[in-house]
Protein backbone atom coordinates (compact mmCIF):
# COMPACT_ATOMS: atom_id res chain seq x y z
CA UNK A 1 0.00 0.00 0.00
CA UNK A 2 1.29 3.41 -0.92
CA UNK A 3 3.08 5.28 1.85
CA UNK A 4 0.77 7.44 3.87
CA UNK A 5 -2.28 5.76 2.43
CA UNK A 6 -1.93 3.03 5.02
CA UNK A 7 -3.45 5.41 7.55
CA UNK A 8 -6.63 5.42 5.55
CA UNK A 9 -7.05 1.66 5.75
CA UNK A 10 -10.08 1.87 8.01
CA UNK A 11 -11.84 3.89 5.34
CA UNK A 12 -11.36 1.45 2.51
CA UNK A 13 -14.52 -0.24 1.44
CA UNK A 14 -16.83 2.53 2.58
CA UNK A 15 -18.34 5.06 0.19
CA UNK A 16 -16.13 7.12 -2.09
CA UNK A 17 -14.26 9.83 -0.23
CA UNK A 18 -12.99 12.98 -1.90
CA UNK A 19 -10.04 14.86 -0.56
CA UNK A 20 -8.87 18.09 -2.16
CA UNK A 21 -5.27 19.24 -1.83
CA UNK A 22 -5.22 22.98 -2.47
CA UNK A 23 -3.03 26.04 -2.01
CA UNK A 24 -1.06 28.58 -4.01
CA UNK A 25 1.38 27.35 -6.64
CA UNK A 26 4.72 26.42 -5.19
CA UNK A 27 3.31 25.51 -1.78
CA UNK A 28 4.28 21.85 -2.14
CA UNK A 29 1.05 20.16 -3.15
CA UNK A 30 2.43 18.09 -6.00
CA UNK A 31 5.36 17.02 -3.88
CA UNK A 32 2.98 15.84 -1.18
CA UNK A 33 0.74 13.98 -3.58
CA UNK A 34 3.35 12.08 -5.55
CA UNK A 35 6.23 11.74 -3.16
CA UNK A 36 4.38 11.20 0.04
CA UNK A 37 0.81 10.12 -0.38
CA UNK A 38 1.19 7.75 -3.28
CA UNK A 39 4.79 6.80 -3.97
CA UNK A 40 3.90 3.23 -4.77
CA UNK A 41 0.83 3.84 -6.81
CA UNK A 42 1.36 2.88 -10.43
CA UNK A 43 1.94 5.82 -12.72
CA UNK A 44 -1.05 4.69 -14.71
CA UNK A 45 -3.31 5.43 -11.79
CA UNK A 46 -2.27 9.05 -11.69
CA UNK A 47 -4.53 10.97 -13.98
CA UNK A 48 -4.02 14.53 -15.03
CA UNK A 49 -7.07 16.15 -16.49
CA UNK A 50 -7.21 19.43 -18.31
CA UNK A 51 -10.90 20.10 -18.86
CA UNK A 52 -10.19 23.59 -20.06
CA UNK A 53 -7.16 25.61 -20.97
CA UNK A 54 -5.25 26.68 -17.93
CA UNK A 55 -6.99 24.42 -15.48
CA UNK A 56 -4.95 21.51 -14.44
CA UNK A 57 -6.21 18.93 -11.97
CA UNK A 58 -3.97 16.21 -10.71
CA UNK A 59 -5.85 13.22 -9.49
CA UNK A 60 -4.97 10.05 -7.66
CA UNK A 61 -7.51 7.38 -6.95
CA UNK A 62 -6.75 4.59 -4.58
CA UNK A 63 -9.58 2.19 -3.78
CA UNK A 64 -12.45 4.45 -2.73
CA UNK A 65 -10.24 7.44 -1.96
CA UNK A 66 -9.93 10.19 -4.49
CA UNK A 67 -7.31 12.90 -4.11
CA UNK A 68 -7.53 15.95 -6.36
CA UNK A 69 -5.03 18.76 -6.56
CA UNK A 70 -5.00 22.15 -8.20
CA UNK A 71 -3.41 25.57 -7.69
CA UNK A 72 -5.46 28.40 -6.26
CA UNK A 73 -4.78 32.03 -7.11
CA UNK A 74 -4.02 33.41 -10.53
CA UNK A 75 -6.59 33.79 -13.27
CA UNK A 76 -10.11 34.41 -12.04
CA UNK A 77 -11.67 33.26 -15.31
CA UNK A 78 -11.12 29.59 -14.50
CA UNK A 79 -12.65 29.73 -11.04
CA UNK A 80 -16.13 28.63 -12.07
CA UNK A 81 -14.59 25.28 -13.04
CA UNK A 82 -13.41 24.69 -9.51
CA UNK A 83 -17.00 24.34 -8.41
CA UNK A 84 -17.36 21.09 -10.34
CA UNK A 85 -14.83 19.58 -8.01
CA UNK A 86 -16.21 20.86 -4.73
CA UNK A 87 -19.28 18.66 -4.46
CA UNK A 88 -19.15 15.79 -1.97
CA UNK A 89 -15.77 16.83 -0.68
CA UNK A 90 -14.95 15.21 2.65
CA UNK A 91 -11.72 16.98 3.41
CA UNK A 92 -9.56 19.84 2.22
CA UNK A 93 -5.83 19.68 2.76
CA UNK A 94 -4.67 23.27 2.48
CA UNK A 95 -0.96 23.63 1.86
CA UNK A 96 0.96 26.83 2.58
CA UNK A 97 4.58 27.74 2.05
CA UNK A 98 5.43 28.80 5.61
CA UNK A 99 8.52 30.64 4.44
CA UNK A 100 6.62 32.80 1.96
CA UNK A 101 5.47 35.66 4.14
CA UNK A 102 4.85 37.84 1.10
CA UNK A 103 2.13 35.65 -0.30
CA UNK A 104 0.49 34.35 2.88
CA UNK A 105 -2.04 37.18 2.59
CA UNK A 106 -3.11 36.01 -0.85
CA UNK A 107 -3.22 32.47 0.43
CA UNK A 108 -5.55 33.61 3.20
CA UNK A 109 -7.92 35.29 0.75
CA UNK A 110 -8.04 32.17 -1.37
CA UNK A 111 -8.75 29.99 1.64
CA UNK A 112 -11.46 32.28 2.95
CA UNK A 113 -13.28 32.52 -0.36
CA UNK A 114 -13.01 28.79 -0.94
CA UNK A 115 -14.47 27.95 2.46
CA UNK A 116 -17.48 30.10 1.68
CA UNK A 117 -18.52 27.52 -0.88
CA UNK A 118 -21.69 25.85 0.30
CA UNK A 119 -20.49 22.50 -1.04
CA UNK A 120 -17.52 22.56 1.32
CA UNK A 121 -19.53 23.26 4.43
CA UNK A 122 -19.10 19.81 5.88
CA UNK A 123 -15.48 19.30 4.86
CA UNK A 124 -12.79 18.77 7.46
CA UNK A 125 -9.85 21.14 7.07
CA UNK A 126 -6.21 20.20 7.46
CA UNK A 127 -3.70 23.01 7.09
CA UNK A 128 -0.16 21.97 6.29
CA UNK A 129 2.34 24.63 7.32
CA UNK A 130 4.83 23.28 4.81
CA UNK A 131 8.53 24.01 4.18
CA UNK A 132 9.34 24.04 7.88
CA UNK A 133 12.89 23.09 6.93
CA UNK A 134 13.50 26.59 5.59
CA UNK A 135 14.83 29.22 7.94
CA UNK A 136 12.33 31.89 8.86
CA UNK A 137 9.40 29.55 8.42
CA UNK A 138 6.31 30.74 10.28
CA UNK A 139 5.29 28.95 13.45
CA UNK A 140 1.93 27.26 13.83
CA UNK A 141 0.49 30.21 15.75
CA UNK A 142 1.76 32.59 13.07
CA UNK A 143 0.18 30.56 10.29
CA UNK A 144 -3.03 30.36 12.30
CA UNK A 145 -3.14 34.12 12.59
CA UNK A 146 -1.98 34.91 9.06
CA UNK A 147 -4.68 32.69 7.58
CA UNK A 148 -7.31 34.17 9.89
CA UNK A 149 -8.30 30.72 11.09
CA UNK A 150 -9.86 32.07 14.26
CA UNK A 151 -12.75 33.20 12.08
CA UNK A 152 -13.67 29.55 11.54
CA UNK A 153 -16.25 28.76 14.19
CA UNK A 154 -18.19 25.86 12.75
CA UNK A 155 -15.53 23.64 11.26
CA UNK A 156 -13.05 21.24 12.78
CA UNK A 157 -9.54 22.00 11.60
CA UNK A 158 -6.01 21.15 12.53
CA UNK A 159 -2.64 22.63 11.56
CA UNK A 160 0.50 20.54 11.07
CA UNK A 161 4.09 21.55 10.51
CA UNK A 162 5.48 19.66 7.55
CA UNK A 163 8.41 19.42 5.24
CA UNK A 164 7.24 17.66 2.11
CA UNK A 165 10.71 17.29 0.66
CA UNK A 166 12.05 15.73 3.84
CA UNK A 167 8.85 13.81 4.41
CA UNK A 168 8.41 15.20 7.90
CA UNK A 169 5.13 15.78 9.68
CA UNK A 170 3.00 14.18 7.00
CA UNK A 171 2.51 10.97 8.95
CA UNK A 172 0.90 12.76 11.86
CA UNK A 173 -1.23 14.86 9.56
CA UNK A 174 -2.57 11.94 7.54
CA UNK A 175 -3.20 9.89 10.64
CA UNK A 176 -5.26 12.72 12.10
CA UNK A 177 -7.18 13.16 8.88
CA UNK A 178 -7.94 9.47 8.58
CA UNK A 179 -9.30 9.48 12.14
CA UNK A 180 -11.38 12.57 11.49
CA UNK A 181 -12.84 10.95 8.38
CA UNK A 182 -13.68 7.76 10.21
CA UNK A 183 -16.35 9.80 11.97
CA UNK A 184 -17.93 10.63 8.65
CA UNK A 185 -17.69 7.21 7.05
Amino acid at each position, binding site marked *: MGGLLSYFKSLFGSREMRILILGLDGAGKTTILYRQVSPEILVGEVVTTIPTIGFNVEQVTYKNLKFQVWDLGGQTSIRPYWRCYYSNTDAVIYVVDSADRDRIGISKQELVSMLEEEELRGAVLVVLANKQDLSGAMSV*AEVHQALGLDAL*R*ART*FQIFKTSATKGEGLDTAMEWLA*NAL*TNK*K
Partner: protein
Amino acid sequence: MFTLLYGLWKWIFRKDEYFILILGLDNAGKTTYLEQTKTRFTKNYKALPPNKVTATVGLNIGKVDTLGVRLNFWDLGGQEELQSLWDKYYAECHAIIYVIDASDRSRLAESKAAFDQMIKSEHLIGVPLLILANKQDIPDCMGVREVKPVFADSGDLIGRRDCLVMPICALNGEGVEESIQWLTDCVLRNSTIRPPKEDKE
Protein backbone atom coordinates in the same frame (compact mmCIF):
# COMPACT_ATOMS: atom_id res chain seq x y z
CA MET B 1 -47.53 31.22 1.57
CA PHE B 2 -44.37 29.24 1.43
CA THR B 3 -42.42 31.80 3.40
CA LEU B 4 -45.16 31.92 5.98
CA LEU B 5 -45.11 28.17 6.46
CA TYR B 6 -41.36 28.13 6.46
CA GLY B 7 -41.36 30.85 9.08
CA LEU B 8 -43.75 28.84 11.21
CA TRP B 9 -41.72 25.68 10.76
CA LYS B 10 -38.58 27.51 11.74
CA TRP B 11 -40.25 28.98 14.78
CA ILE B 12 -41.42 25.60 16.01
CA PHE B 13 -38.08 23.92 15.53
CA ARG B 14 -35.85 26.78 16.48
CA LYS B 15 -33.27 26.11 19.13
CA ASP B 16 -31.36 28.57 21.19
CA GLU B 17 -27.66 28.10 20.61
CA TYR B 18 -24.97 28.51 23.23
CA PHE B 19 -21.23 28.37 22.70
CA ILE B 20 -18.97 26.64 25.20
CA LEU B 21 -15.22 27.13 25.15
CA ILE B 22 -13.03 24.29 26.44
CA LEU B 23 -9.62 25.44 27.64
CA GLY B 24 -6.72 24.20 29.73
CA LEU B 25 -3.10 23.12 29.30
CA ASP B 26 -2.08 20.55 26.70
CA ASN B 27 -2.61 16.98 27.85
CA ALA B 28 -5.35 18.03 30.30
CA GLY B 29 -7.94 15.90 28.49
CA LYS B 30 -10.05 18.51 26.70
CA THR B 31 -10.48 16.62 23.44
CA THR B 32 -11.10 13.36 25.26
CA TYR B 33 -13.80 15.14 27.27
CA LEU B 34 -15.43 16.53 24.13
CA GLU B 35 -15.43 13.11 22.45
CA GLN B 36 -16.98 11.60 25.57
CA THR B 37 -19.62 14.35 25.65
CA LYS B 38 -20.51 13.80 21.99
CA THR B 39 -20.74 10.07 22.58
CA ARG B 40 -23.11 10.46 25.51
CA PHE B 41 -25.39 13.03 23.98
CA THR B 42 -25.46 12.07 20.30
CA LYS B 43 -27.24 8.97 19.06
CA ASN B 44 -25.10 6.77 16.83
CA TYR B 45 -22.05 8.91 17.28
CA LYS B 46 -18.92 7.03 16.22
CA ALA B 47 -16.49 8.14 18.86
CA LEU B 48 -12.80 8.36 18.22
CA PRO B 49 -11.11 5.73 20.44
CA PRO B 50 -9.28 7.61 23.25
CA ASN B 51 -5.91 6.29 22.11
CA LYS B 52 -6.41 8.00 18.74
CA VAL B 53 -6.88 11.44 20.23
CA THR B 54 -3.84 13.56 19.41
CA ALA B 55 -2.73 17.00 20.55
CA THR B 56 -4.98 19.73 19.20
CA VAL B 57 -3.45 22.42 17.04
CA GLY B 58 -6.55 24.07 15.67
CA LEU B 59 -10.16 23.62 16.60
CA ASN B 60 -12.47 20.72 17.33
CA ILE B 61 -16.14 21.46 17.27
CA GLY B 62 -19.04 19.58 18.77
CA LYS B 63 -22.81 20.00 18.82
CA VAL B 64 -25.03 18.64 21.53
CA ASP B 65 -28.78 19.03 21.91
CA THR B 66 -29.95 18.82 25.48
CA LEU B 67 -32.73 20.24 27.64
CA GLY B 68 -34.20 22.03 24.65
CA VAL B 69 -31.07 23.96 23.76
CA ARG B 70 -28.13 23.41 21.47
CA LEU B 71 -24.65 23.54 22.91
CA ASN B 72 -21.79 24.20 20.51
CA PHE B 73 -18.34 23.36 21.78
CA TRP B 74 -15.03 24.87 20.80
CA ASP B 75 -12.07 22.75 21.89
CA LEU B 76 -8.75 24.53 21.40
CA GLY B 77 -5.11 23.49 21.74
CA GLY B 78 -3.50 24.04 25.13
CA GLN B 79 0.18 24.17 24.19
CA GLU B 80 1.88 27.33 25.35
CA GLU B 81 2.31 28.73 21.86
CA LEU B 82 -1.40 28.25 21.18
CA GLN B 83 -2.68 29.94 24.33
CA SER B 84 -2.34 33.28 22.56
CA LEU B 85 -5.23 32.21 20.32
CA TRP B 86 -7.70 31.58 23.14
CA ASP B 87 -8.90 35.15 23.54
CA LYS B 88 -10.28 35.29 19.98
CA TYR B 89 -13.23 33.25 21.21
CA TYR B 90 -13.98 34.98 24.51
CA ALA B 91 -16.48 37.58 23.33
CA GLU B 92 -18.73 34.99 21.71
CA CYS B 93 -18.77 32.22 24.29
CA HIS B 94 -21.49 31.64 26.86
CA ALA B 95 -19.45 29.50 29.26
CA ILE B 96 -15.92 28.28 29.91
CA ILE B 97 -14.87 24.77 30.79
CA TYR B 98 -11.35 24.80 32.17
CA VAL B 99 -9.82 21.32 32.31
CA ILE B 100 -6.89 20.39 34.50
CA ASP B 101 -4.92 17.17 34.68
CA ALA B 102 -5.48 16.33 38.34
CA SER B 103 -2.84 13.62 38.20
CA ASP B 104 -0.08 16.10 37.37
CA ARG B 105 0.84 18.14 40.42
CA SER B 106 3.99 19.37 38.70
CA ARG B 107 1.96 21.43 36.21
CA LEU B 108 -0.71 22.78 38.53
CA ALA B 109 1.04 26.13 38.95
CA GLU B 110 1.43 26.44 35.18
CA SER B 111 -2.22 25.63 34.72
CA LYS B 112 -3.21 28.17 37.34
CA ALA B 113 -1.11 30.86 35.62
CA ALA B 114 -2.78 30.20 32.25
CA PHE B 115 -6.13 30.25 34.04
CA ASP B 116 -5.43 33.65 35.64
CA GLN B 117 -4.36 35.06 32.30
CA MET B 118 -7.64 33.88 30.80
CA ILE B 119 -10.07 34.80 33.53
CA LYS B 120 -8.89 38.37 33.84
CA SER B 121 -10.13 39.13 30.33
CA GLU B 122 -12.87 41.75 30.34
CA HIS B 123 -14.66 39.75 27.64
CA LEU B 124 -15.30 36.97 30.12
CA ILE B 125 -16.80 38.99 32.96
CA GLY B 126 -19.75 37.12 34.44
CA VAL B 127 -19.42 34.11 32.13
CA PRO B 128 -20.14 30.82 33.94
CA LEU B 129 -17.03 28.81 34.71
CA LEU B 130 -16.66 25.09 35.21
CA ILE B 131 -13.31 23.77 36.37
CA LEU B 132 -12.87 20.07 35.74
CA ALA B 133 -10.37 18.13 37.83
CA ASN B 134 -9.85 15.43 35.23
CA LYS B 135 -8.22 11.97 35.35
CA GLN B 136 -9.84 10.96 38.65
CA ASP B 137 -9.17 7.34 37.70
CA ILE B 138 -5.47 7.80 38.33
CA PRO B 139 -4.48 6.77 41.87
CA ASP B 140 -3.31 9.56 44.11
CA CYS B 141 -4.61 12.31 41.85
CA MET B 142 -5.76 15.63 43.27
CA GLY B 143 -9.38 15.72 44.35
CA VAL B 144 -11.66 18.74 44.43
CA ARG B 145 -10.56 19.44 47.97
CA GLU B 146 -7.00 19.94 46.82
CA VAL B 147 -7.76 21.82 43.60
CA LYS B 148 -10.40 24.20 44.85
CA PRO B 149 -8.28 26.31 47.23
CA VAL B 150 -5.69 26.82 44.50
CA PHE B 151 -8.25 28.37 42.17
CA ALA B 152 -10.18 30.08 44.97
CA ASP B 153 -7.01 32.07 45.41
CA SER B 154 -8.03 33.97 42.26
CA GLY B 155 -11.37 34.86 43.81
CA ASP B 156 -11.18 38.52 42.91
CA LEU B 157 -10.41 37.73 39.26
CA ILE B 158 -13.24 35.21 39.14
CA GLY B 159 -15.62 37.73 40.67
CA ARG B 160 -19.36 37.16 40.69
CA ARG B 161 -20.38 34.36 38.41
CA ASP B 162 -21.48 30.74 38.52
CA CYS B 163 -18.35 28.77 39.26
CA LEU B 164 -17.81 25.14 40.20
CA VAL B 165 -14.96 22.65 40.52
CA MET B 166 -16.00 19.12 39.57
CA PRO B 167 -14.13 15.82 39.61
CA ILE B 168 -14.40 13.86 36.37
CA CYS B 169 -12.85 11.10 34.37
CA ALA B 170 -13.02 11.98 30.69
CA LEU B 171 -11.58 8.61 29.78
CA ASN B 172 -14.50 6.55 31.09
CA GLY B 173 -17.03 9.37 31.12
CA GLU B 174 -17.69 9.53 34.84
CA GLY B 175 -19.12 12.93 35.72
CA VAL B 176 -19.48 14.06 32.12
CA GLU B 177 -23.27 14.11 32.05
CA GLU B 178 -23.49 15.92 35.37
CA SER B 179 -21.02 18.52 34.16
CA ILE B 180 -23.04 19.28 31.04
CA GLN B 181 -26.23 19.45 33.06
CA TRP B 182 -24.74 21.98 35.45
CA LEU B 183 -23.36 24.06 32.62
CA THR B 184 -26.64 24.11 30.73
CA ASP B 185 -28.46 25.36 33.82
CA CYS B 186 -25.86 28.10 34.15
CA VAL B 187 -25.96 29.38 30.57
CA LEU B 188 -29.76 29.45 30.75
CA ARG B 189 -29.65 31.37 34.00
CA ASN B 190 -27.12 33.77 32.52
CA SER B 191 -29.01 34.19 29.24
CA THR B 192 -30.44 37.57 30.13
CA ILE B 193 -26.86 38.84 30.27
CA ARG B 194 -25.44 36.71 27.43
CA PRO B 195 -28.37 35.93 25.19
CA PRO B 196 -28.21 32.85 22.99
CA LYS B 197 -27.65 32.98 19.29
CA GLU B 198 -30.72 31.88 17.47
CA ASP B 199 -30.32 28.82 15.31
CA LYS B 200 -30.08 29.77 11.64
CA GLU B 201 -31.14 26.40 10.25
